[in-house]
C-alpha cells in the first residue's frame, strides 16, 4: 500500500479537479454555443443591416420566449430519460382555461379587467398546467406506464379538452393591461415576456445544477436502480419533474395569451417536438443522465436564428426544418458515439 499512499496523498482535492478550460471544451454545451455564434455571425455578415436591428432581435426573442419556457421543463424530463409529448397541448389547455376564467369573472369580457383578474388568470393557467403535469407524473411513476405513451395520451386529451371548453374556437377578451405591459411592453428595449422567460430559465438552470433536486434528476436518469438503492424516492421525484414540466407549460400558455392577445387553440401541435429538438440540440442526452439548461437555451435559438436568418438572406424558409433536422440527427449521433466510446472501458 505504500506506493498507493504516495500517489493518493500527493493528489489533493483541488489538484484532482480537471482544469476549467478542459472541462469546458469537454462539454457539449460549449460546441453548441459556438454553432449558434457562428450562425449569428454568418447571417450578420451577410445582412448586418437586417439582422442587428432592434425590432428583428426583439421579435426573435419574444417569439422564442414561450418555447424556451417549455424547453426548460423538457430539459428536466429528458434528463430523467423520460419524454413529455403533452407540453404543447397542456399549453393550449392552460391558455384557453385561463382566458375563459378571466372572462367569466369579468362578466364575459375581460378586455378592460384589472390586475386582480389578471392574477387570477395566471393562477388558473399555472394550476391547470400543473394538474396535467401531476397526472402525467402519477401515471408514469405509480402506474409504471412508459412516459411516451402517457404523454401521448395527455397530448391528445389536453388538446381535446381545450377544444371542448370553448367549442373549438379561440378565446378573445384578454385584458388590454396584460398585453400592453407584459405581452408587448419592453424594459430597456428588452421585451418583458423575454425577461420573464429569462428569469424562469435562470431559476431552472440553478435548480438543475446547484440543488439536490437537480442532482436527483441526473441520478434518476443515469441509473434509476442506483438512485432507488441509495434511498432516493424515484417515484416521488419523477412525479415532481413532470409536475414541473406541466407547470411551466401552464405558465407558457399564460405568456402566449399576453403576447398574442388571444388564446389560440391551434398552432401548438408541434411545440412538443420543437422543445424536444431544442433540448437534444443543446446537448442533453435523450438517454438521460446528462444535460444542461444553458445548452437548451442554445438549442432553442439555433432553429429560431436559422429560420429568421434564412428568410432575411432570401433563402426559402422551407430549408429551415431540413437544416434543423440535419443538426439534430448529427447531435444525437455524436452523443451516441461518445457514449459507446466511454462504455467500452
Amino acid at each position, binding site marked *: *500500500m505504500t506506493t*498507493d*499512499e504516495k*500517489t*493518493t*496523498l500527493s*493528489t*489533493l*482535492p483541488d489538484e*484532482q*479537479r*480537471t482544469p476549467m478550460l478542459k*472541462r469546458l471544451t469537454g462539454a457539449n454545451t460549449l460546441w453548441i454555443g459556438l454553432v449558434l455564434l457562428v450562425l449569428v455571425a454568418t447571417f450578420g455578415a451577410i445582412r448586418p443591416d437586417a439582422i442587428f436591428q432592434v425590432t428583428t432581435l426583439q421579435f426573435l426573442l419574444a417569439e422564442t420566449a414561450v418555447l424556451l419556457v417549455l424547453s426548460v421543463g423538457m430539459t428536466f424530463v429528458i434528463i430523467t430519460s423520460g419524454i413529455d409529448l403533452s407540453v404543447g397541448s397542456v399549453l393550449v389547455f392552460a391558455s384557453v382555461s385561463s382566458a375563459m376564467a378571466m372572462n367569466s369573472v369579468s362578466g364575459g369580457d375581460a378586455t378592460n379587467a384589472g390586475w386582480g383578474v389578471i392574477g387570477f388568470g395566471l393562477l388558473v393557467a399555472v394550476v391547470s398546467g400543473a394538474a396535467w403535469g401531476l397526472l402525467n407524473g402519477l401515471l408514469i411513476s405509480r402506474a409504471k406506464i412508459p412516459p411516451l405513451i402517457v404523454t401521448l395520451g395527455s397530448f391528445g386529451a389536453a388538446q381535446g379538452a381545450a377544444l371542448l371548453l370553448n367549442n373549438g374556437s379561440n378565446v378573445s377578451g384578454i385584458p388590454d393591461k396584460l398585453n400592453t405591459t407584459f405581452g408587448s411592453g419592453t424594459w430597456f428595449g428588452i421585451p418583458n415576456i423575454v425577461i420573464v422567460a429569462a428569469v424562469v430559465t435562470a431559476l431552472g438552470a440553478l435548480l438543475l445544477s*446547484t*440543488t*439536490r*433536486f437537480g*442532482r436527483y434528476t*441526473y*441520478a434518476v*436518469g*443515469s*441509473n434509476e*436502480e*442506483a*438512485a432507488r*438503492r*441509495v*434511498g*432516493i424516492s424515484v417515484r416521488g421525484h419523477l412525479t415532481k419533474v413532470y409536475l414541473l414540466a406541466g407547470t411551466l407549460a401552464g405558465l407558457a400558455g399564460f405568456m402566449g395569451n399576453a403576447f398574442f392577445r388571444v388564446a389560440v387553440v391551434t398552432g401548438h401541435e408541434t411545440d412538443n417536438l420543437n422543445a424536444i429538438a431544442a433540448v437534444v440540440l443543446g446537448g442533453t442526452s435523450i438517454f*438521460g*443522465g*446528462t444535460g444542461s439548461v444553458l445548452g437548451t437555451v442554445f438549442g432553442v435559438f439555433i432553429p429560431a436564428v436559422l429560420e429568421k436568418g434564412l428568410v432575411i438572406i432570401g433563402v426559402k424558409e422551407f430549408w429551415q426544418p431540413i437544416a434543423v433536422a440535419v443538426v439534430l440527427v448529427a447531435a444525437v449521433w455524436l452523443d451516441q458515439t461518445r457514449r459507446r466510446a*466511454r*462504455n467500452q*472501458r
Partner: protein
Amino acid sequence: MSQPLLEARDLTKNYGTVEALRGASFTAYPGEVVSLIGDNGAGKSTLVKCLSGVEQPTSGSLVFDGEPLNLGSPNDARALGIETVFQDLAVAPDLDPAANMFLGREILKPGVLGFLGVLDKKAMRKQAAEHFTRFGATLQSIDVPIAALSGGQRQSVAVARSVAWASKLVFMDEPTAALGVVQRERVLDVIKRVRDEGIAVVLISHNMPEVLSVSDRVEVLRLGRRVARFKASETSVEELVGAMTGALTQEDAA
C-alpha cells in the same frame, strides 16, 4: 463469541412459485469477516437482499444487536449502519465519484441556501477525496463521470462509498469479481481495514482461496438453506466445496 450483531432465523422468500430461500439462517458477529458462499442459485443474493432491506422475506425473523428487526426498505438498514456493495455496483455512471459517494446523503450549504436545497459541492468533493484516499481508491480525477473510469476504479468507488457510511455492517456481493490482481488485493485489504475498525463484513464470493484468506468464519448456503458453518482457520477449500455441493452437511447448521 459474543452476542451476534445480526442474526437471521428461518428466512423464506418466494418469487411466485420459485422458492429462493427455504428457511435460511445466517449469523454475523461484530468486527468479523464472515463469508457467505454457495453455488449459483443457492440464494446468496436473495439472502443479502433480505438482510439489507431491498427485499422483504416471505417469513422468518431478523435480530439485530439483540433486538427484533423489521427492514421495510434499504433506508431502514442504512439508518442502523448497515451498507451494501451490490454485485451490479449500482452507481450512477453519469455522476462523478464524489456525487456518487454522497448520493442520497448530500451535504447542503449552511443557512438559507441549504434550506433551498443548494448543494455544498466543494465540501463533498473534499470529504470524498479523503475517503477514497483512506480506502486506497486511486482516481486521477474526482470530477469525471464514473463511466469514464475503468471497471476496477468503478468498483473501488462503490466499495469506498458503502464502507464510508457503514458503522456496523457491510455486505459485499462479489466485490472482487471482474477485478485485476492488484485491485483485488486492494479490495481485500479494505475489507480487513474495515474489520479492524470494528465493523462486520459479510463477503459473498465464488473465489475459495480468497474466502479463506480474508474471512474469520464461513457460512455455506445450499438450495436456500444454511448447510454448514466453518472457522476459516480450521477448514479447507475441499471442505467448503463439499458443503456447497451437498457432499457434506453439518447437522447443527440449519
